[in-house]
């Protein structure tokens, strides 16, 4: 089991999916420095406590409490699967986070949002912020919130982006689930799925 140390950000009572993605990619790169993806994460429950990654060894039974399940690598390569699970330990600390500042120059055109000149910050943070912004404009669901539910990237982009980022909202199943395509420098690299969720008190 590999515990992760990421903070709550802003006023969120849960750990952000983008931060879990970042921690998972770091974990994968520690396991294999040449790791380049693909990465899939399904978030099953909002992670509200300290947590850890655990790898699935030989088709073991899933843990009883699972925040997320993940898949790393290619089917015919060294694919690894596993889970994000709650663990005993101090609650994550909290830091300030201004998500809107990451995407202040975004341009929205119908179901497409684009950041032609990405600002400083991680690629995943900007992609998630853009997708959420697009949802809030296209499909406002207050008092519920749009939450990142599934990440599906064919290749990983971990560092600060240098090319344009474009998000296209392509499927909407009410407020249950949406699928958005993620383009980097004009190339489709994966999908993000968001669900409408009522966020409970922390």
């Amino acid at each position, binding site marked *: 089991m590999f515990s992760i140390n990421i903070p709550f950000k802003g006023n969120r009572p849960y750990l952000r999916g983008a931060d879990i993605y970042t921690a998972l990619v770091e974990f994968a790169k520690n396991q294999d420095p040449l790791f380049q993806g693909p990465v899939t994460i*399904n*978030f*099953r429950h909002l992670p509200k406590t300290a947590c850890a990654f655990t790898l699935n060894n030989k088709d073991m039974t899933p843990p009883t409490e699972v925040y997320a399940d993940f898949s790393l690598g290619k089917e015919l390569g060294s694919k690894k699967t596993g889970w994000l699970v709650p663990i005993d330990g101090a609650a994550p600390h909290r830091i300030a986070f201004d998500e809107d500042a990451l995407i202040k120059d975004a341009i929205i055109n119908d179901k497409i949002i684009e950041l032609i000149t990405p600002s400083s910050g991680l690629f995943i943070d900007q992609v998630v912020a853009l997708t959420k912004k697009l949802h809030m404009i296209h499909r406002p669901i207050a008092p519920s919130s749009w939450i990142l*539910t*599934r990440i599906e990237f064919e290749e990983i982009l971990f560092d600060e982006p240098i090319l344009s980022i474009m998000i296209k909202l392509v*499927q909407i*199943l*009410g*407020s*249950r*689930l949406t*699928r958005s395509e993620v383009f980097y420098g004009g190339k489709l690299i994966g999908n993000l*799925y968001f*669900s409408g969720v009522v966020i409970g008190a922390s």
Partner: protein
Amino acid sequence: MQETLRRLIGQVSPALAGKTLDPSVSLLELGLDSLDHANLLLAVEEEFSVKVPDEDAEHLITMDSLVKFLKDQGIKA
């Protein structure tokens, strides 16, 4: 159509891949959770080029109901 649905179910829930599924039993009882179910409906939309109305989504929880829905949409078995 049923074969395609089984393939899609196996994709969203690998634990069910290749298993014999009773078409009248709720997929939620067979192990799909709400995220798997929503993923399945998105996959159905894409595979069959149909739109699943939000009001229908919660009722499409068995193979039988999915088949009936697709037939009602003009998809041939």
